[in-house]
């Protein structure tokens, strides 16, 4: 087993950490959502990677085929992608409303306005 | 009547409170309801007395709170006596309240009468509690229902004092008393009051003393030093509250709970056999002496009475802690004697305030000429505190002294004698100056006695104080049952 065997997981972990970093470090609300999206995508890879079996085919019973890939994770991730899309859509809708209410989408400026308001 | 009696007794003031708050718009109706409720309560409680004297223990389970633990009422001699004092003096106090609250044009009178009735419900609940859980439930409810009464005036200083009142009572009960109860429950599996106690054989050594400590200091209402500070703080309340609650119902609930825990949870014999419980006599003795010395230095009349109450409460605690049959009787009787005497003193203080707005001791020179009835009653109450015959205080002191002799407990003996001297030292000058000195400055508005309702009330309690010296047999018989079971 060499390091390259696990390359899928390395990439997934890098995406995961990158996404989290963006969410935490960026003050722009849209960029935060981008980070969140990257973070979620990494999870898709974690699921999909192990379900692909080298040499396996789609799980349709056919004569002469012995090795199938596992279809279940793909189905799960389809669901997860839908959830992810819905989350980002709702998040962006909120950002639009926040922009209407505050005139900015920078976190520190919003914070400053709330402080003044009190 | 047998089983339902205690439940009815509990329901009457509760219903009264509801009716009072509904009748808020019509003062006359509201006060009529108060008086009717008080009379009905005394009637029901009084009708239980012959049963208890005959050896019955009317009991009823209201509902089960947790699996295996229930809210239950059982009437036994000690609780019977407490219930009788509380309900009996409520009538007198209601008469007095009407005079006082109207005389001083107090605000929020509906809240006052309603909370008073709730407090009485709680007091009856404590008196008739059949297990420690029920007692704790009503104990806490009493704290909370008296809070609005203490904070009645509603200005900043009053609310500060009310905070002290609630803070100390709630903290001690939740942080010390509750773990004591839970610990008792864990090691015995029950919380029922049982005539010979439930802890014998379950606990030994220093843990007994520790648990006793959790109980004694957790029951902050008994005002054993150093958890006594709430009582002087509570004196910001209107005088009827100080009189009935902080001389009778609340503070007696405290010492009553301690007595009940010692007799029915620890068991007198068990505790006597445990050397680690000996500290209680010393702490009570210290409280008696220290509170009397502090009382000596007070200039405000109600605060003086408060510290005197602190000392007198520890009489009961000390008498209980002597752990001899005669002293247990003395403890029970002293609850009655002190109740009659102290309520008279507070009534008098309230009468003086209503008539002349005077609150300080130094202002009282020569006041007896303007208010002879009031000061006569005051004198009777003060003599009872000192323990001079023919007043109630003498009877109980006699039994406590006898019990101390029985136990060869010289600390208790010395404390009683010393505190008698101290009591005399702070009461007698007031009486002397009131009767024989001349007024320093004549009051701007000449005044006579307080309103009739007030005078009637304080006369009744003064007469009761005297009468108890002569007619104390029923009470003694009742409490003889308390120790009769313990050989």
């Amino acid at each position, binding site marked *: 087993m060499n390091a390259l065997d696990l390359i899928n997981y390395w990439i997934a972990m890098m995406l995961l950490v990158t996404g989290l970093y963006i*969410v935490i470090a960026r003050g722009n609300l849209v960029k*935060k959502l981008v980070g*969140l999206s990257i973070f979620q995508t990494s999870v898709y890879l974690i699921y999909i990677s192990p379900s692909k079996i080298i040499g396996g085919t789609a799980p349709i019973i056919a004569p002469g085929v012995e090795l199938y890939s596992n279809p279940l994770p793909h189905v799960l991730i389809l*669901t997860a992608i839908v959830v992810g899309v819905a*989350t980002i859509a709702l998040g962006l809708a909120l950002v639009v409303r926040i922009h209407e209410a*505050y005139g900015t989408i920078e976190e520190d400026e919003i914070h400053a306005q709330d402080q003044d308001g009190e | 009547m047998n089983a339902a009696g205690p439940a009815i007794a509990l329901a009457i003031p509760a219903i009264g409170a509801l009716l009072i708050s509904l009748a808020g718009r019509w003062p006359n109706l509201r006060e009529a309801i108060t008086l009717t409720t008080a009379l009905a309560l005394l009637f029901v409680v009084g009708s239980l007395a012959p049963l208890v004297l005959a050896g019955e223990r009317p009991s009823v389970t209201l509902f089960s709170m*947790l699996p295996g633990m229930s809210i239950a009422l059982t009437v036994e001699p000690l609780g019977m006596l407490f219930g009788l004092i509380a309900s009996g003096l409520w009538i007198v106090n209601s008469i007095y309240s009407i005079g006082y609250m109207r005389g001083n044009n107090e605000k929020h009178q509906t809240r006052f009468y309603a909370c008073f009735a709730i407090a009485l419900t709680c007091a009856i609940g404590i008196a008739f509690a059949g297990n420690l859980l029920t007692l704790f439930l009503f104990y806490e409810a009493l704290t909370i229902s008296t809070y609005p009464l203490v904070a009645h005036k509603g200005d900043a200083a009053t609310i500060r004092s009310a905070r002290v009142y609630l803070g100390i009572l709630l903290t001690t009960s939740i*942080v010390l008393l*509750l*773990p004591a109860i839970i610990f008792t429950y864990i090691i015995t599996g029950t919380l029922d009051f049982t005539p010979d106690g439930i802890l014998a054989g379950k606990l030994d050594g220093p843990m007994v003393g520790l648990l006793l400590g959790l109980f004694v200091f957790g029951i902050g209402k008994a005002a054993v030093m150093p958890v006594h500070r709430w009582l002087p703080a509570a004196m910001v309340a209107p005088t009827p509250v100080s009189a009935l609650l902080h001389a009778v119902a609340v503070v007696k609930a405290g010492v009553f709970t301690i007595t009940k825990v010692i007799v029915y949870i620890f068991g007198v014999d068990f505790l006597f056999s445990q050397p680690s419980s000996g500290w209680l006599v010393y702490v009570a003795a210290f409280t008696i002496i220290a509170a009397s010395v502090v009382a000596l230095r007070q200039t405000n009349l109600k605060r003086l009475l408060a510290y005197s109450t602190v000392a007198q409460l520890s009489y009961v605690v000390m008498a209980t802690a002597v752990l001899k049959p005669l002293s247990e009787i003395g403890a029970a009787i002293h609850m009655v004697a002190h109740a009659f005497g102290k309520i008279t003193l507070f009534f008098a203080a309230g009468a003086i305030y209503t008539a002349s707005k005077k609150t300080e001791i130094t202002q009282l020179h020569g006041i007896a000429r303007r208010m002879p009835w009031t000061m006569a009653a005051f004198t009777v109450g003060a003599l009872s505190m000192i323990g001079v015959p023919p007043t109630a205080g003498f009877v109980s002191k006699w039994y406590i002294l006898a019990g101390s002799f029985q136990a060869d407990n010289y600390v208790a003996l010395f404390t009683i004698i010393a505190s008698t001297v101290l009591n005399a030292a702070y009461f007698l000058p007031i009486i002397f100056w009131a009767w024989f000195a001349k007024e320093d400055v004549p009051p701007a508005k000449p005044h006579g006695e307080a309103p009739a309702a007030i005078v009637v009330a304080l006369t009744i309690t003064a007469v009761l104080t005297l009468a108890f010296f002569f007619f104390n047999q029923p009470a003694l018989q009742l409490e003889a049952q308390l120790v009769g079971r313990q050989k």
Partner: protein
Amino acid sequence: MIESNLPALQVVLPLVAAPLCVLLRRGSLAWLVTWSATWATAAISIAILLRVLDAGTISYTFGGWEPPWGIEYRVDIVNAFVLVLVSVIGAIIVPYARRSVGAEIRSEQHYLFWAAYLLCLTGLLGVAITGDAFNVFVFLEISSLATYILIACGQDRRALVASYQYLIMGTIGATFIVIGIGLLYLMTGTLNLADMAQRLSTMPLHRPQLAALAFLTVGISLKLALFPLHLWLPNAYAYAPSVSTAFLSATATKVAVYLLLRFSYSVFGQSHVIENISVEAVILALSVAAIFTASLVAIFQDDVKRMFAYSSVAQIGYITLGISLANQNGLTGGIVHMFNHAVAKGAIFMLLGCVALQIGQPLMAQMAGLAKRMPMTAAGLVVGGLSLIGVPGTVGFISKWYLVVAAIEKGWWWLAALVLISSMLAAIYVWRLIEVCYFREPSPELEAAGEAPLSMLIPAWVLVIGCIYFGLDATMTAGTAASAAQSLLEATR
């Protein structure tokens, strides 16, 4: 027919009612639909609980596919209890909400609000009822997305920011949960929770199992707002519409607590993972920290809703404390406190909604003299507050009793002392409010105000009376919680 399909109807009914609300497009009709759907849901949940108490665990298979291949709904006494809690509170709030929503949300959005409310309920019930790990995630996200909407409906613009913050943190939490579930799937090859538990019990320890437990615990802790992952909660509760706050505080965090129970006891209970890592010690420390920090912060809040939001963080600490004690009484205390806190906090936030109807956002200064103008509201707040302190005769006392008994049984006197001392912190912030309500002259805002309408007061007072009733007679709640705790403990080694 209907009876055997109750577990499915439990979730399907509100799920179908939600798009119906959108189609009807009329606020009042949508409210009527919500009303019928929630009360029917509540009735179903009670029927399920009775059946579970009577006949034991119910297993429902979708489409006749046998578990572990098909999706299974599995109801034992633990989640039957949670289902009743969520759906009954969800139903009681709806009649109350008519006036409150009418005042706080623009009328053209009413039907959307009700759709979101029903979806949120669907998600919460789904999380509680399902026996499939991935289903948990899907339902969790349904409820979360609906929750973000419910919060963002608040009048104050800060509600939008609070909702956004919660969206970010909630999504991170949910994603952590998916990672945990994914790792478990990799290790066990199954998504059925019961099957997973069984396979884990025979499996030697691998590192991914540890990682799965860690991801799940952190993810769920974010959802249940365990200190220090609670940062989203105070603002979300403070600026959300009153109805949303009442509903979410009573139900959402409780369902997350259920998830924690399910994973740490039922799934990992027999595995080798739990022997090698002491999650309990960590949760215990965090719970105590939550109780003290959040109570202290609550004392200094001027916005009453925010104050009680911090109080929620502290009260959740009591629940997780009970879970971390991991003995019969501790677990009973934790589970019964889920119910007790839901009733008390639900009542408090509903009554604050009554105040909000009359004067807007309830700040401490504006609530001065509340007792004079709105006596029933103020009295209800007192009862709810006493319950938070844990005064005997209220529900809070029952929970504290079990927690202290559990701590003393373990010989942890210090913990018993900490639990009781923390009640005094609750007493301080509750009393601050009581003094303001009862001993001040009415504020200018309150001067003209009167008591809230009966349609709001009655549902709120149902919960207030529940606070007292279940405090005096807890045989039902504590009894159910005790058997739930027993069934969870039996599943562990």
